[in-house]
């Protein structure tokens, strides 16, 4: 199956911070795996995700994503890798409010030539993804700013899945949803990921989600940085 994410002795410190926020000896996530990453607020979950997404740079030789050592890729190459192979879902405000749902989904290929190539008919693909995620056909032409938070998250998930990227990163995408919508959202996300053999890295501080995932990682277990330094 292959490795999607491989961490080897990762140590990351924000510029100006007195001590490292993350010190992770080892972490491996295989392709196609669906993993829940759990951790307390401020423990560095989003920081780890931004390293994996290549927005910030890990030191060389410590973090590999889809076979690329992110520490050795230029900013531009990391941006390209993210554009083409990684779908990202935020906690909320994922969409550009002035575009409609469908346009927000096809926006995924704006900076991603490889994704564009994998999709023959962007509108049709966007429509089928939105349908798969349970958005009513009538809502696909509505402006993002007119959709409910739950609908917005579905559109965000559809965008992350657009053009079949290898990895989906979701940073607390359900924290703005109620329990019922949350479970439903995760179920459709699972189904869509399974269909494409997509790896899913799902972050939460919510204890209740663990049973739904095949694997759960506690950040506090793998991160050996001293806890009390986190907010210093």
């Amino acid at each position: 199956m292959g490795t999607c994410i491989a961490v080897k002795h990762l140590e990351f410190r924000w510029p100006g911070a007195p001590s490292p926020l993350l010190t992770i000896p080892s972490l491996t996530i295989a392709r196609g795996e669906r993993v829940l990453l759990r951790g307390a607020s401020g423990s560095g979950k989003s920081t780890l995700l931004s390293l994996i997404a290549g927005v910030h740079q890990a030191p060389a030789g410590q973090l590999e994503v889809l076979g690329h050592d992110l520490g050795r890729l230029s900013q531009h190459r990391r941006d390209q890798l993210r554009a083409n192979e990684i779908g990202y879902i935020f906690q909320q405000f994922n969409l550009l409010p002035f575009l409609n749902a469908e346009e927000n989904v096809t926006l995924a290929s704006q900076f991603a030539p490889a994704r564009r190539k994998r999709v023959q008919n962007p509108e049709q693909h966007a429509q089928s993804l939105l349908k798969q995620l349970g958005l009513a056909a009538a809502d696909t032409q509505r402006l993002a700013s007119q959709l409910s938070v739950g609908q917005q998250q579905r559109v965000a998930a559809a965008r992350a899945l657009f053009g079949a990227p290898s990895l989906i990163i979701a940073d607390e995408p359900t924290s703005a949803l109620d329990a019922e919508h949350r479970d439903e959202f995760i179920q459709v996300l699972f189904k869509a990921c399974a269909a494409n053999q997509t790896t899913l890295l799902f972050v939460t501080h919510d204890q209740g989600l663990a049973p739904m995932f095949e694997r759960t990682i506690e950040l506090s277990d793998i991160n050996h940085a001293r806890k009390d330094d986190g907010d210093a």
Partner: protein
Amino acid sequence: MLKLAWASLRNRRASAILTILAIAISTLLLLGVERVREQTQANFANTIAGTDLIVGARTGSTQLLLSSVFHIGSLNNTLSWDSYQYLTKLPGVKWHIPMALGDSVAGYPVVATTSDFFSYFRYGDGLSLELAKGTVFSEMNQATLGAEVAARLGLQQGDPLTLAHGSGGISFSDHDQHPFVVSGILNRTGTPVDQAVYIHLEGLGLLHGEFDSEHSADHDHDDHHDHASHAPPVYTLSAVLIGLEARPLALRMQRQINTYKNEPLTAIMPGMALTELWRTLALFEQALLAIAALVVATGLLGMLTTLLASLRERRREMAVLRALGAGPFSIFSLLVSEAMLLTVIGVSTGVLLLFLGLMLGGDLLLTHTGMLLRASPLTSNEWVLLAAILAAALILSLIPAWRAFRNALADGLTIKL
């Protein structure tokens, strides 16, 4: 990228439209000033053509030019009839037009001259004066009007006319015992000719009591010239326009006239004097252009302000784009595209407004100010100005673009609002 910039701008419609409007209006102003400048320069250079020398009593060259060609200001000194006779007899002189100034009709200058004025005076690229209505004055009490004078005073052929001594609108000594009659009206020329009233030298002489009408009362008008050579119609003249057989003679003749022994005279070459005068006026026009340029700068700074202010509200938008794989350079170029879109639309609107204004208001401008502005295609100068606006916008847009670039790198995907 442009599509995205466009969509984002549409979302911030109100501020975008205001920015575009500011740029459009400042562009309109800049182009308008440039057009007026070019037009006045052209009009200015076109006021007189074909005249090789202008001669007056000893005075400054600008003063002589202003009074003889533009009928602005008054000449304190005059040249005698004898000196005029001397000038007409100089070798190489092809034609000569005597001019006596000083009277006015409702504030418009009266030029007393001979019918030679209508035969020899040229303007523009050598155009001669043409009559719109009636005839050139032939009787002593007839007057030929410039187009503007006739239009403004509502005078028709055959209407009576009262001359006033001095150039003021309100006259203290009307020559109303000698009323004149309008004999004809000249076509519009766009030169000071439009603003003047032309009468016979002898008519003026009669008015001022210098010319004895009894003496010639029973003579035909045809032999006025004979008669005039015996007894001058007026004692003094303000200026004489001279045309030469060959233009190169002008320089030598100018020296000769300037050193004339019997009376101190000044001879100027109108082309050179006009250039000299224009240089003084150009300073004023350049100041006007500079002010217009500053207004454009203000418009562009307004755009800079709105773009910078919008960045704060748009950090979310930027984070989303970053998550989609937009590099800092994409964010950078997004902002540059936005600025250029705003400027291009603004500038185009400005040009459109200019043409619309000229097409609708050009005639109004002509009748009220005598300024002839056409909705002609953009000149190369105007293209340069437009390019300069775009270049300035491009340079200014680097500031918010750089700011967004830095934010994109620092914020990453997590934004603390």
